[in-house]
């Protein structure tokens, strides 16, 4: 394990210059190993190492030297949007030496042609897949790929996309792959035709322990043999407080949102005597209360918690809220975050101690909704322990409730190998989507060429052949592809579905719904959209189920399924439909959150998905030539996107006018953009001088664009 000073590293001057400005003086052992393994020769490389070991810098060196020496473009792909923006911000440093850094994510039905002027493009796997489907011209200039967090390939939902992007990348240029430790690293490296570089080095040493209760004492048994006892009632709280009162920060993982929230409140009752920067926290509180993307109750609850130095964190929170919490934790204003395991997968948020308070986690997809956390997940969570620059060492502690499980937990998390990555293209939904994706970027293909590309997947060859045959048959039967003399190509429908980034099964559900529809019932359409595999999922209680079925005021387009699991999806889709309908009926956000017991993060996720699905439904109807439905579907889509009744659609087209402002001025008699331009004083009196003036100007611009 050696360090190397920047000057002795042999890196080109333009790299040294930028790194020095960042305050980097030497390369750490992970980075040195990468250099020694051929980073500067741009060999295909799979680097597995713990979190926070400086992998991003390795990727930067690879990308920048490749662009500088070989020309072309580099693409950096991450599994999460938040990560993509974080990386793009970091990479801005390279603009100093003349490289342009671009970021693209979200919005699947476009080719982002403007990116032709950029050198480094940061994106997500889904977005890159969709860019391939749109045959973006600049993609052929990309000759260096960084695939970040490749271990996501094992994720049931998203693994298929990541694998298909990896297949494309290795066909098009040099590939640098970054991953957490995986069980079958050698197999993956071979599959990627890459040199395997495994580094075990961590910037802050990690101590692992299990914790359990023994009488009135709490016992911590460390992996290195040490045993520590502390007295207290609740083990998780006691240990967390022990760390906090010694000046450290804690991340606690709980299996469900509810548990995370409850624990945060319990912990906050005990932080009265912790030294907190009250003035700074007061500012954090103000920021929270001013958030526009959160419900009132959520804001008030969180504001009172942060004043105690504690917060909870889960996907039900709005993005703005999560960002404030993460930022305040990084600034060490918050002492503890209680989170669901999703946080471990996301942004880098190190803490002195990580407490894994449940050895199982909530998963809607498995029987009983509980599944044990995997060794991979454990490593992800434990890997957050130890904050470089602040902690001498990190501690990862698993709380074991049942002492019978003690030995089992120790042997599972401390001794077992991390699970291998397995291909997720094995599900019909992912594999068929993969076929569409290849056909849309490659055009017409002979069956054997298609098989050749598909065989580059991690799936066993025999399975690929079987899935491909079944897939082609299903896709042909349902009108997505045509097969003529062994040559396969997309039909107009198939090509549109691929561009829309819609799963073929989703497209099929929508297609059948469109064919069944003989009246324009919003709820029925929204239900069909939500019922597709691409639709958002929510929890439905028995009481809600009865109420919804009671309130149903038109015939649904999907028949009630017999299967119990399918019925659950059916009801979830119905709830999503009701939520979306309240949204387009301009119900207050606070009302919706309370009525359906969801968080603002959930509402955002639902609306984003329904926005895209309603857009896709419109385009499917168009390609299926159902012209009588187009007007209704376009309006429905626009209303979902903006959350308004039909009468406001004219006003919300103007930038800066959302559902609330539109309603305000509409009720005062300003009904369309022309009215804004004609009544500037009235608009200013309603929206305030400064904003009013801006809106009047934008309305003017909007109208002149229309007439041009």
């Amino acid at each position, binding site marked *: 394990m050696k360090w190397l000073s920047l000057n002795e590293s042999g890196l080109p001057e333009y790299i040294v210059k930028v790194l020095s400005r960042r305050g980097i003086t030497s390369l750490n052992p992970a980075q040195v190993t990468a250099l020694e393994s051929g980073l500067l020769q741009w060999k295909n490389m799979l680097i597995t190492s713990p979190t926070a070991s400086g992998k991003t810098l390795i990727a930067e060196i690879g990308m920048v030297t490749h662009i500088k020496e070989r020309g072309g473009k580099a693409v950096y792909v991450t599994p999460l949007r938040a990560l993509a923006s974080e990386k793009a911000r970091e990479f801005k440093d390279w603009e100093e030496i003349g490289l342009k850094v671009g970021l693209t994510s979200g919005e699947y039905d476009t080719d982002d042609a403007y990116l032709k002027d950029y050198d480094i493009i940061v994106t997500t796997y889904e977005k890159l897949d969709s860019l391939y489907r749109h045959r973006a011209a600049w993609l052929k200039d990309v000759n260096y790929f960084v695939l970040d967090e490749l271990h996501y390939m094992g994720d049931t939902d998203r693994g298929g996309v990541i694998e298909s992007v990896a297949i494309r990348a290795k066909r098009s240029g040099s590939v640098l792959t970054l991953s957490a430790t995986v069980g079958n690293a050698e197999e993956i490296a071979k599959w990627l035709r890459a040199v395997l570089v495994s580094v075990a080095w961590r910037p802050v040493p990690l101590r692992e322990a299990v914790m359990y209760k023994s009488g009135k004492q709490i016992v911590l048994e460390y992996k290195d043999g040490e045993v520590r006892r502390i007295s*207290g009632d609740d083990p998780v709280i*006691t240990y967390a407080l022990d760390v906090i*009162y010694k000046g450290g920060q804690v991340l606690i993982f709980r299996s469900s949102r509810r548990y995370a929230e409850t624990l945060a*409140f319990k912990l906050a*009752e*005990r932080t*009265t*005597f*912790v030294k907190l920067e009250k003035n700074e926290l007061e500012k954090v509180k103000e920021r929270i209360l001013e958030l526009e993307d959160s419900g009132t109750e959520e804001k008030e609850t969180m504001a009172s918690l942060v004043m105690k130095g504690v917060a909870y964190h889960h996907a039900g929170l709005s993005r703005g809220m999560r960002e404030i919490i993460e930022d305040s934790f990084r600034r060490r204003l918050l002492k503890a975050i209680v989170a669901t395991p999703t946080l471990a997968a996301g942004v880098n948020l190190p803490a002195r101690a990580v407490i894994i308070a449940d050895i199982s986690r909530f998963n809607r997809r498995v029987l009983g909704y509980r599944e044990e956390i995997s060794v991979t997940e454990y490593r992800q969570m434990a890997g957050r322990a130890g904050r470089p620059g602040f902690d001498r060492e990190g501690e990862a502690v698993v709380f074991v409730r049942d002492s019978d499980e003690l030995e089992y937990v120790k042997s599972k998390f401390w001794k077992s190998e991390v699970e291998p990555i397995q291909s997720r293209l094995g599900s019909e939904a992912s594999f068929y989507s993969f076929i569409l994706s290849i056909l849309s970027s490659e055009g017409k293909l002979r069956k054997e060429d298609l098989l050749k590309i598909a065989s580059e997947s991690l799936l066993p060859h025999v399975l690929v052949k079987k899935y491909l045959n079944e897939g082609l048959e299903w896709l042909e039967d349902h009108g997505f592809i045509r097969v003529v003399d062994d040559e396969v190509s997309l039909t107009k429908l198939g090509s549109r579905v691929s561009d829309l980034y819609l799963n073929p099964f989703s497209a099929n559900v929508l297609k059948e719904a469109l064919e069944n529809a003989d009246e324009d019932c919003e709820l029925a359409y929204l239900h069909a959209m939500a019922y597709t595999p691409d639709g958002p999922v929510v929890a439905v209680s028995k009481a809600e189920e009865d109420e919804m079925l009671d309130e149903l005021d038109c015939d649904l387009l999907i028949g009630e399924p017999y299967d119990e699991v399918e019925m659950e999806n059916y009801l979830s889709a119905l709830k999503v439909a009701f939520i979306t309908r309240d949204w387009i009926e301009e119900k207050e956000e606070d009302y919706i959150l309370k009525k359906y017991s969801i968080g603002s993060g959930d509402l955002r996720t639902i609306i984003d998905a329904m926005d895209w699905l309603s857009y896709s439904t419109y385009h499917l109807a168009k390609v299926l030539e159902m012209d009588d439905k187009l007007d209704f579907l376009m309006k429905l889509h626009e209303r979902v996107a903006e959350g308004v009744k039909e009468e406001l659609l004219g006003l919300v087209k103007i930038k800066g006018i959302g559902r609330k402002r539109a309603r305000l001025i509409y009720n005062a008699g300003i009904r369309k953009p022309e009215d804004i331009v004609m009544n500037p004083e009235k608009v200013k009196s309603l929206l305030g001088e400064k904003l009013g003036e801006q809106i009047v100007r934008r309305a003017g611009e909007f109208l002149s664009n229309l007439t041009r």
Partner: protein
Amino acid sequence: MDIVRVKTVDAVSMVDIFKTLNEFIPEVTLDFTEEGLKISGIDASKVVLINVFLPKSYFDEYDVSGEEKAGVNLEDLTDLLSGVTKNDSLALSGEDSTLTIEIEGEYYRKFAIPRLQVESVELPQTDLEFPFRAKLITPTFTEIISGFEDLGADAVRFKSNDGKLTLTAYSDVVESTIELSTENGGLLEAEGSDAESVYGLEYLANTTRLKRASGSMEIRFGTQLPLKLRYEMPQGGYNDFYIAPRAE
């Protein structure tokens, strides 16, 4: 040679202080300074912060130069001291690695216990601004709390309104309210604005063993602020307890 030697003729009070501390903390550091003996700490649940000060003049003998710290296990110490009576005097003297305790009354007893390294916890400043303050005689408070305990309550709501202090003890099934004011004689002094907070009864009750050692006390609190109980001791000494509020 002794580095430190202090002596009090009121052994019982000293033992009560140690026993009270032992309700909250297993080990403490006795901090002998030139001004007097200081003891501070926080309980394992981090709900109660304790600050004890017994000035030099509280003791009948106080022979300390500079500052000397001695960590002790309170369980061991209070076990040794369980038999003291009101006629006993108590002396503490410290050597390098031991703390010697001498009890003198009807007969003479001497013990030596090891001095411990107690992990020190950084304690925050407690210069909080409390909106309400009241003074009362210690038995008034301790009797009320003991009554609440008999009732089976688990929390007490402190509420100040118009200079009156209302204590309401409750649990899921019981409730009892007591009103104290300068008018009804329950309080010696009261000042400040209206406030309301809830504190755990168990923590309150664990402080009341000081009823013999302290004659009067002061209560301060505020909405969502800790409760500060100051048990006043002779010669300007005090035992301060800051109890964190419960969320409701």
